[in-house]
């Protein structure tokens, strides 16, 4: 705060100022105390590199509070002092370096910097080194212009060349690391070799030491992209690179150089004996056409041109009108490189006016019927499926959808089918899941190990598979059950394959899709004979099975788990039009039970096919009531009890009629399936 007050006479208490700054877009995240002085910690968004300095913050404070910035003495001083021995500076890479100012200081005595400066640097997290280096860092923090001091006597031929790195060049940076420079890296070289990585870090060999007496002070403008690429390629970020990447004020290069030279003169003695200003002078300032009416239309407000002029003047813009009073020509200060279009100025207007003061309205808008009915019906179907699953008693789970190679192989999932991340955080989360199986088993493990023994879960989420050269992302419904499906003091039902099949039947029925069937199949992850392919309208739509023992063991699980995974697309494309309603028959059906012994080879579906064969005189509905296989029936066979319901749409059936059909069905079972009446 005391440092800030050297730039702008602000008297607000720290908390008040923090609040004003936050509401103007410079969020104060914390107020610390250092040596009894409040220190504001700000979050500077990447569009505001001009605020990466005390001066920049002071300008904002001035704009917000309406106070004037204090003038600075160094700026008033003529910049071209003594020309006796100008350094040799050559910019070879003009795309990488727009301007390079070198000042030579003679008779410098290196020593520790004063206590007040060390304290301020520390508050900003910068380590004190010596009075020369600290002065450059101080000016960087104060004005946002990165600077560097070379020991002039250690520069070959006292020459500076700004150029691209040549093959196999290297430099040992100030942190003591020898770095091989990628070809084309922008470097500062002397007559022989690179001595600094431009805009990133200086070299150790040319650094200012206790024995240094002559220095070359660098203040330059480097291309943001080049600095950024270099910093990234070398994995080396610094206060300098951070500012250059975001862009420094082209008009600040010279004043910062002058300020630093003056500061070094004060702290370490020495005087400026030479100077060279190479490269281009700052380019013209940006001029933006700003239409007040347009801004008002976009923000929903009514500002007058006068109001806009005075407001923009607070952030150092020069405003001129062109033609009508609504159309303004705004000249932007050099340090606001983020202001390039009219909308940028609209934001400046809005934040200085105060977002909270802008009106709040409900839009007038035309009703837009869904332009994309396919999307909205799919969204609705997804939501319905989720709700059905929950209503059917399943808990929705949402495990992390990145998995490890080890998990994939434990779950018998081919690593080749899975898509890997190029930059995973860790090997635990390196692959996009190719199925929901891995996640469901992970959740099962977590819960079983916590003593939650009964699992009923579902997940509806995307899986990603590699197929040939392409990558396919698709939605899956996964179900998993284990332990008891339900348990009350009166009855309990185990979780098993039929529980899972029943759930799928409910889903498909309620989604208006056809019947779901299981075709026995062998699956890599499932117990042999306890697995199958799910068929929806005779088309493969997923898998179902009991997780194989070796898979459980590999995952450290010891309780049987049943899993199903379904491609829900078939459910979403289910018939949209409902079949017409069938009124219930007013004629009560006749009920008969049927108990037969059938050979083991006969499937229930074979029995049902015969019972449901169309009959001339009536409709027959069969429902399985009991199935028994065990000691009370002959080996090689099992018994079935089926409840049959005989009905006619137009009249009451007589017992004689029903008996005739009933007997015929028994006969058909006996003849065609080798069944025996019990």
């Amino acid at each position: 705060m005391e440092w800030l007050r050297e730039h702008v006479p602000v008297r607000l208490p720290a908390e008040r100022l923090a609040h004003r700054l936050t509401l103007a877009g410079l969020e104060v995240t914390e107020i610390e105390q250092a040596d009894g002085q409040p220190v504001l910690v700000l979050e500077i968004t990447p569009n505001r590199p001009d605020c990466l300095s005390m001066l920049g913050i002071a300008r904002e404070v001035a704009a917000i509070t309406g106070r004037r910035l204090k003038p600075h003495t160094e700026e008033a001083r003529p910049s071209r002092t003594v020309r006796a021995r100008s350094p040799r500076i050559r910019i070879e890479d003009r795309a990488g370096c727009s301007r390079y100012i070198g000042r030579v200081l003679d008779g410098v005595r290196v020593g520790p910097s004063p206590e007040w400066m060390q304290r301020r640097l520390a508050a900003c997290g910068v380590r004190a080194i010596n009075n020369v280096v600290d002065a450059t860092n101080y000016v960087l923090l104060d004005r946002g212009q990165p600077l560097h001091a070379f020991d002039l006597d250690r520069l070959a031929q006292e020459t500076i060349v700004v150029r691209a790195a040549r093959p196999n060049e290297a430099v040992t940076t100030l942190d003591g690391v020898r770095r091989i420079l990628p070809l084309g890296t922008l470097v500062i070289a002397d007559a022989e070799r690179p001595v600094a990585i431009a805009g990133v870090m200086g070299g150790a060999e040319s650094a200012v030491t206790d024995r240094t007496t002559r220095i070359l002070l660098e203040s330059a403008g480097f291309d943001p992209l080049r600095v950024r690429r270099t910093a990234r390629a070398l994995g080396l970020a610094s206060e300098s690179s951070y500012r250059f990447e975001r862009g420094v004020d082209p008009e600040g290069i010279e004043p910062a150089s002058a300020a630093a030279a003056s500061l070094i003169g004060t702290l370490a003695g020495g005087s400026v004996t030479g100077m060279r200003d190479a490269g281009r002078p700052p380019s013209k300032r940006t001029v933006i056409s700003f239409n007040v009416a347009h801004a008002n239309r976009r923000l929903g407000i009514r500002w007058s041109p006068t109001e806009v002029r005075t407001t923009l003047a607070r952030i150092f813009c020069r405003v001129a009108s062109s033609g009508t009073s609504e159309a303004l020509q705004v000249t932007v200060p050099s340090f606001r490189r983020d202001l390039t279009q009219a909308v940028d100025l609209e934001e400046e207007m809005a934040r200085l006016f105060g977002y909270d003061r802008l009106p709040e309205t409900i839009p007038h808008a035309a009703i837009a019927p869904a332009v994309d009915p396919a999307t909205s019906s799919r969204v609705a179907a997804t939501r319905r499926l989720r709700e059905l699953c929950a209503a059917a008693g399943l808990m929705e789970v949402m495990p992390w959808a990145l998995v490890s190679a080890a998990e994939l192989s434990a779950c018998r999932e081919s690593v080749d089918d899975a898509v890997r991340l190029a930059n995973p955080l860790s090997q635990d989360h390196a692959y996009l899941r190719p199925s929901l199986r891995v996640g469901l088993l992970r959740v099962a493990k977590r819960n079983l190990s916590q003593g939650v023994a009964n699992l009923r879960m579902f997940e509806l989420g995307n899986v990603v598979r590699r197929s040939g050269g392409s990558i396919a992302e698709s939605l899956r419904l996964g179900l998993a059950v284990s332990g008891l499906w339900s348990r009350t003091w009166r009855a309990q039902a185990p979780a098993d394959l039929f529980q899972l099949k029943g759930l799928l039947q409910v889903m498909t029925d309620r989604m208006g899709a056809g019947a779901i069937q299981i075709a026995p199949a062998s699956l890599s992850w499932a117990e042999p004979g306890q697995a199958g392919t799910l068929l929806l309208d005779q088309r493969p739509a997923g898998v179902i099975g009991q997780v194989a023992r070796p898979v459980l063991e590999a995952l450290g699980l010891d309780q049987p788990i049943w899993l199903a995974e379904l491609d829900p697309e078939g459910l979403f494309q289910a018939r949209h039009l409902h079949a017409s309603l069938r009124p219930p028959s007013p004629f009560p059906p006749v009920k008969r039970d049927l108990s037969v012994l059938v050979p083991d080879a006969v499937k229930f579906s074979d029995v049902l096919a015969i019972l449901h064969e169309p009959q001339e005189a009536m409709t027959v509905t069969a429902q399985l009531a009991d199935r028994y296989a065990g000691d009370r029936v002959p080996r090689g066979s099992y018994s079935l009890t089926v409840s049959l319901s005989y009905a006619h749409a137009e009249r009451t059936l007589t017992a004689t009629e029903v008996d005739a059909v009933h007997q015929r069905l028994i006969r058909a079972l006996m003849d065609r399936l080798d069944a025996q009446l019990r």
Partner: protein
Amino acid sequence: MTEPEPSGAQPAGLTLGQIDAQWEAFSSEIADAQRPEKLEQLRVKYLGRKSPAAAGLKQLGVLPPEQRAALGKRLNVFKVEVERRLAEAAQRASAATSRTAGPDLTLPGDAPAAGRLHPITQTMQAILDCFVPMGFEVVEGPEIEYEFYNFDALNIPKDHPSREAFDTFFVDAPTDRPREGARLLRSHTSPVQIRAMQRRRPPLRIVVPGRVWRPDPLDASHSFMFHQVEGLMVDSRVTFADLKGILSAFLTRYFGPGTATRFRPHFFPFTEPSAEVDIACSACRGHGCSTCEQKGWIEILGCGMVHPNVFKAVGYPADRVQGFAFGMGVERLCMLKYGIRDIRVFFENDLRVLEQFQ
């Protein structure tokens, strides 16, 4: 003075009026008598050997015949009626007793297996349910995206520091669409806006729920996988004031009336002006606490007026359309609502935790 005895002391004194008084007393006492012992007490008191009625019967012989007939008749009626009422009460009592001997109705009922939606799903739907009635249509998009949709079209140029806020997982496979750049896991739901605008002409009013990814190491407040809901409204005249109105309506509906909110300038590459919206911390009411990191306010969402460069990227006439966009983190909203302190809770899926969300 001796106390008057309840029976026999003044036998000739039992009058018709006294019998009526006895009846009144009995009627009021039996009304709230239920237990068998109490009924027996009443029988002794009103019909027992020492009762006024018994005494009265004994005195009948000494009365003149005309008095004897009237009193006798009245006493008889009294006795029959008392017995009848006692029998009724006894029956009622025993009926009540036999009912409690039936099923123990305090036993638990058979609840059907209860499923639940995941808290993230619930929160997402709650958010969507605020916008859908205001005419926003729900739209979804792919999780595996291309650089063009995730960055370039959103005015986030390559090699620009603004990309740093969107650290991204890339897919380890060469792209199949070189013009749209490398494949990645979308780091926000905004690419869906681009796809929707490419597909349709304005006016447009959409909300986009979805899963997003950023390579942040797991800790209590970071997960590399999380969820967002994004909104976009574009036409020829929608304003920043409209954006404030819509979002205030949402915040009131989601957090309840009386929730203090503030709009704060911020930077997003794809909007200009941009804002962040805070609500007053409900834990400390704006004074600063650990929930709000001592700020008193909690950041809820980001928003702004769509940047003209975004309209240009999708081929909209930037001078004739305008619109707003907003986006919010689903986990964050859910954590605030339920006081959850660790984001990992959502993805560890401990069923004992998930069961607590209705």
